[in-house]
């Protein structure tokens, strides 16, 4: 199971490094994002990257429970994005 990932020695550093760079880009957009919707989208992508990290870590260590963590992170990402979108939309309605 986890031998598959360690059979190719450069695989895990490339995976984690790529996801770290992606997370860094998302956090940078979260910081510099000129408007609130930009930040919400950046947060959504950051949570999706965390989901991927949890899945790869599950495959690396062989613990299936990290897949449940990934599922919970996916649910939280969806609910938070929808809640923030509703909040922004209601604010836009009241502003007009």
């Amino acid at each position, binding site marked *: 199971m986890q031998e598959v990932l360690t059979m190719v020695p450069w695989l895990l550093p490339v995976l984690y490094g790529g996801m770290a760079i992606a997370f860094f880009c998302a956090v940078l957009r979260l910081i510099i994002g000129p408007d609130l919707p930009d930040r919400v989208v950046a947060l959504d992508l950051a949570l999706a990257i965390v989901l*991927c990290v949890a899945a790869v870590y599950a495959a690396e260590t062989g613990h*299936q429970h990290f897949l449940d963590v990934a599922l919970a992170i996916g649910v939280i990402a969806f609910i938070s994005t929808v809640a923030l979108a509703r909040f922004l939309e209601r604010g836009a309605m009241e502003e007009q």
Partner: protein
Amino acid sequence: MIVTWLIVLLLLLGVGFVLVAAIGLLRLPDFYCRTHAMAKAGAFGGSLLLIGVALAFGSWLVAVKVILIIIFFYATTPVATHMIGRAAFLRGTRSWEGTGVNELQGRYDIQKQNLRGWKPEERGEFEPRE
């Protein structure tokens, strides 16, 4: 052996797509372009990576769990992105100056939230929104 390289390929493709999504989120000029990059490439890359993880485990229980995650992830990302894009449009987020067409301009009543049809006799009554 073939399965090993298939797993490696799927994991690398997944991370590559996620990385492209993040770079697009960082580099593209306006909110709508960024959303476009992030939603499609992010969800697709995540799904590829999860399939690779399921093959690396090689058990049916994990496969069912991963399929559940993929269905949920792939079904909810477009919904969430559509909602945040709609909220941004209603909020008045400006698009990039290179954007050619805004098809909702003058056809969408923001107060009542209804969309005017494409027929010429149905247009006219709205003043266009700047």
